[in-house]
C-alpha cells in the first residue's frame, strides 16, 4: 500500500471528494483533471477502442458525480474506485447492455471531432494484440478477471485492489496467480516481472 497519497503537497483526493460532495464543481473538475488520463488509458485497455474509452471515461466520472456522497476512498485516492467502476461499465458494455450510452446521449455535444489518437502509427497491430489479451482476460472466472483488470491491466497495487474488491491481499495475489496460469495457456506472453 502506498504510504502517501499521489499528490503530495496538493489537496488529496479525499479532500477534493468531500468538497465536491458538498457541491463544489471545481473540486470535482480537479479530480477529473487529475485522473481522467489514467481512466482513459485504463478504459482503452479494457475495450481496445479509443472511442469507447472516451465514452467510458465520461460515464465513470458521471457515476462518480452521482455516488459521491456515500463513499470513502481507498488510500484517499479516487483512482482504485474509478478503475473498478470502469471495469464494471466495460463488462456491462461487452454484454451488450450499454446502459451508459443513454446517460452520455444527454450530454451536450460540441463541434470537436473525437477519436484523436486513432491515427497513431502502429494502431492496427496494437489494437489486434490488445484484442487478443482482452479475449483471454474475458475468459477468466469473474474473481480472477476483476483482479487482473485492476492489478495487471490497471497497474493498481494488490492492497488497492483488495480494498476495492473487499477481499484480502492474499486473495488478490492468489487470484492473479491462478489467472496467470490460465493466461499463459492461451495467448499471453510469459511472466517477466514481479509483483510490487
Amino acid at each position, binding site marked *: 500500500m502506498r504510504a502517501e497519497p499521489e499528490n503530495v503537497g496538493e489537496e488529496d483526493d479525499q479532500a477534493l471528494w468531500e468538497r465536491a*460532495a*458538498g*457541491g463544489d*464543481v471545481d473540486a*470535482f*473538475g480537479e479530480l*477529473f*483533471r487529475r485522473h*481522467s*488520463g489514467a481512466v*482513459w*488509458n485504463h478504459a482503452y*485497455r479494457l475495450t481496445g477502442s479509443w472511442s469507447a474509452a*472516451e465514452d467510458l*471515461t*465520461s460515464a465513470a*466520472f*458521471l*457515476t462518480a*458525480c452521482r*455516488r*459521491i*456522497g*456515500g*463513499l470513502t476512498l481507498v488510500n484517499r485516492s479516487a483512482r482504485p*474506485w474509478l478503475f*473498478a*467502476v470502469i*471495469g*464494471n461499465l466495460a463488462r*456491462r458494455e461487452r454484454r451488450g447492455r450499454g446502459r451508459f450510452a443513454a446517460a452520455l446521449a*444527454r*450530454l*451536450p*455535444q*460540441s463541434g*470537436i471531432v*473525437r477519436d*484523436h*489518437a486513432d491515427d497513431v502509427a502502429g494502431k492496427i497491430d*496494437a489494437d489486434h494484440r*490488445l484484442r487478443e*489479451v482482452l479475449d483471454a482476460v474475458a475468459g477468466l472466472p*469473474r*474473481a480472477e478477471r476483476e483482479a487482473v483488470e485492476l492489478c*495487471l*491491466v490497471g*497497474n493498481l*497495487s*494488490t492492497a488497492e485492489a483488495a480494498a476495492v474488491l*473487499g*477481499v*484480502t491481499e*492474499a486473495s488478490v495475489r492468489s487470484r*492473479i496467480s491462478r489467472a*496467470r496460469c490460465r493466461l499463459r495457456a492461451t495467448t*499471453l*506472453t510469459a511472466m517477466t*516481472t514481479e*509483483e510490487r
Partner: protein
Amino acid sequence: MDTDIDLPADRPMPVELQEHLWNRLRPQVAATLTGRRRRSAVLPLSAAAAVGLLVVGGVLVLGQDDAPRRTIPASDPADVQLAHDCVTATVASGVEVPDPGSWTPGVKIDADTGSGNGAAWPEFLMIRNDRAAALCLVAGSSTGGITGADVAAMEGRGRHSYATLTAARPFDYLDAWNFLDGTSIQFGITTEDVVAVSVVWQDGNVTPALLHDGTFAVKIDRGEMCGRPGHISATPVASNVVRVTLGDGQVVEGPLCKPTG
C-alpha cells in the same frame, strides 16, 4: 505491480480531449452536485423515517410482482441501515442491484478477525429479498457492499435462489468464506418455515447455525465452496451435511451443496 501481459504503454491524454470531455460533463456535474447540496438536508430525515417504519411495524409483508409474498421479521435498526448502505455502496461501485429498495437484513456473523484468520472485514451481513440473498462485507456501521455481486444471482436467476427451494430440500448453499486458519463460514438460505439449522458431523456432533429470515450462517472447520472445482467438497458426496428443523417439528437432512443434474 507492473504488468506482465503485452499491453500498450500509456498515452498522454491530449489536453484538447480532456477539455472537450470536461466541457461536455461540466453542466451535468454542476446540476447533479447542486442537486445533492439541496437534497442533503432532507435525505437523513427520510432515511430515518424508513428505518422507523420497519421497526415500529415489527412485522411487515412485502411482495414483488411475480414472487411469493413473505413475512419479514423485525430486525435491528442498525442492520436495516447496513442493508440499505450495502446496496447503496454496491450500486455506487457500478453494479446494478435489482430492486434496490427490496433488500432487508438477514443473519449477521462475526468473521473472527482477531484470530488472525486473514479476514479483511470483521463481520458479514446477509441480505435478502423475495427472490434472492446476497452477502455484505461489514465493519461496524460501515459496509464494503455486496461481495461478488452478480446481477443474475441477485435477480433470483442463479443456482442458489429462493425459487429453487423445495419441501424435500428447504435449504441451500449460498456462499462461503474459507480462511487462512482452516476455518470457514458457510452461508445459506432456507424456506420461511425453517426454524433451526445446523451442520451435522459424522461423529454425531452438531454445530448450530445462526438463522434469521431465511438466511443462515455457520462457522465450521471444514469449508466448502459449492460447485467450484478445485475447492474442498466441490462434489455433493463430500459436502457438509445440514439438518434443518421446520416449524411443525419435521427434520430434513441433506448435503449443503446441492446435487447437480
